[in-house]
């Protein structure tokens, strides 16, 4: 007896229909999912190939080590690269401790009352606020400091002397620190929400076991909760930092320069730091530019050669982001290995 192979579409209600139509539906859905995955991938490949093609021949050592120039063949990314690095480091220094601290407070300490409930629900809303709004906020709070200082302000001081000839300017003005603080505000909600999720995923039994052994709340958080939540927190931080790195709008608002021919604190090599350590302190209070703004500026130029310069800048931005993510994934992997699940 040969097995009947249904060639024509089986009539609905027949056994053949029942046995086959579910499979077709399944195949159809699988195909749809595959199409969405591959189309995303295709866009990425097209982007990388076209950008690399245009950057070819322009992305060289000279491009990485020179400042911007009116002449496309002499323009370089150095100011943006160093500016971006300075800003991201300071952003991390502010946003990670504050973000993780806030998440720990909300999840581990805060009692459930109206105020904490309002804070919890609005954190997610804050994460959705357009970045330009944070730019305006940064401009008012950090760049101008509500006009409290200076000639027309309440306090007639120019700044706080720090170390050597380094001075904290008041208000901060259009400096690295203003940009970093604005970006910190921008990514704080993302970090807090991610860290909260990670803390919530730590089983309560772990906390109870630790407390029952006579650990204080802080010891429990420090030795059990945070190590277990660290990989999840790291993931959130990676995503947030990547976002901050490519962010342009709030920095335009803050007033990051578009044509900069120096690095923050004039630090272009380690030699400068050895010769004048105070430059490290000066750098955060220096004017700056970042890679995305530099790219934005080149794209706007009339000379068509600048399109190639912009493409080279995009490649640098992508590579730096990849390196940053790779580093963070490695750190996350390491912290996961310390947990002996």
């Amino acid at each position, binding site marked *: 007896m040969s097995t009947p192979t249904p060639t024509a579409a089986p009539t609905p209600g027949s056994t053949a229909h029942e046995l086959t139509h579910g499979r077709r539906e399944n195949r159809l859905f699988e195909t749809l999912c595959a199409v969405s995955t591959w189309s995303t991938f295709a866009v990425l490949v097209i982007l990388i190939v076209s950008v690399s093609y245009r950057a070819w021949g322009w992305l060289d050592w000279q491009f990485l080590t020179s400042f911007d120039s009116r002449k496309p063949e002499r323009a370089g990314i150095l100011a943006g690269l160093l500016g971006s690095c300075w800003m991201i480091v300071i952003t991390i220094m502010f946003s990670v401790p504050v973000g993780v601290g806030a998440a720990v407070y909300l999840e581990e300490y805060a009692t459930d009352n109206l105020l904490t409930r309002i804070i919890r629900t609005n954190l997610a809303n804050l994460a959705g606020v357009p970045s330009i709004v944070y730019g305006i906020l940064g401009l008012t709070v950090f760049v101008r400091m509500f006009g409290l200082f200076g000639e027309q302000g309440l306090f007639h001081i120019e700044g706080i002397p720090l170390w050597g000839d380094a001075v904290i300017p008041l208000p901060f003005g259009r400096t690295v620190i203003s940009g970093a603080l604005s970006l910190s505000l921008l990514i704080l909600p993302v970090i807090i929400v991610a860290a909260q999720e990670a803390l919530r995923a730590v089983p309560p*039994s772990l906390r*109870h076991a630790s407390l*029952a*052994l*006579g650990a204080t709340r802080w010891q429990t958080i420090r*030795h059990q909760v945070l190590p277990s939540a660290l990989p999840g927190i790291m993931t959130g931080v990676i995503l947030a930092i990547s976002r901050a790195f490519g962010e342009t709008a709030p920095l335009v608002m803050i007033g990051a320069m578009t044509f900069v021919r120096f690095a923050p604190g004039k630090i272009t090599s380690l030699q400068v730091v050895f010769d004048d350590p105070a430059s490290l302190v000066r750098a955060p209070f220096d004017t700056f530019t970042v890679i995305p703004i530099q790219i934005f500026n080149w794209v706007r130029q009339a000379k068509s050669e600048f399109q190639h310069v912009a493409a080279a800048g995009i490649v640098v931005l992508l590579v730096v982001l990849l390196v940053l993510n790779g580093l963070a994934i490695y750190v996350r992997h390491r912290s996961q290995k310390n947990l*002996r699940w």
Partner: protein
Amino acid sequence: MSSMLNAFSDLVKTRDGQSDSESATPDQRTTKIETNGLDFYYGDQQALFDISMTIPERAVTALIGPSGCGKSTFLRTLNRMNDIIEGTRLTGQVLLEGIDIYAPAIDVVALRKKVGMVFQKSTPFPKSIFDNIAYGPRIAGLRDRRKLTEIVESSLKRAALWDEVKDRINESAMALSGGQQQRLCIARALATSPDVLLMDEPASALDPASTARVEDLIFELKENYTIVIVTHNMQQAARVSDTTAFFFQGRLIEVGDTRQLFTNPKQKQTEDYITGRFG
């Protein structure tokens, strides 16, 4: 009815050295913990009603009763683990060696070192076996590696786990079997050298062989520790305990010598429960 009770009396006889064969009767033993008129509330809901009982030193006290009867809640009042839950309230007294542990001057952290706890679900930390056991002493401030090693070894030996794990002390505790993990948790609780060990259904998630090992361990530990154990399993209560307390709907119905309670319960409700009429 009497035949069922006799079945339990057989179980009660399975161990030497339990309750009746000891010289001291429950009344003559030193009291370790005493509760007076203990009421406990989760928010508006009262979970414990006027519990007054004594827990003898260096003996096993079993708390039995149907689910939701308050036995676990009562256990957790003894080391103030209920404090962690928001909105709970307690009135009455819990005296540990005559000291009110709910007095304002009491340091909860110090109390929990003295009154250790083992949970129903074994909860090894995602660390090595060594770090698991050393956790309690370490957070108490002990840094001396040699002393820590001594404590780890003696705790594991007392928890009858040393021979099984001595060659992989630096491997993850998560790789141990369920029964080994539970004994690890017992060892971890012993490492802070408590006087009292509270156990919340320590064997309910274990296979029969592991359960037997844990029960043997409990029986050995009562030489040095006061043990309070919550269990669903009445045979287990009969096998390991000297004193048994029966809880029902948040009230202490009956407490007494295990053998007496299982063979000749004074209350009708106790009899109904242990003969399987309900719960």
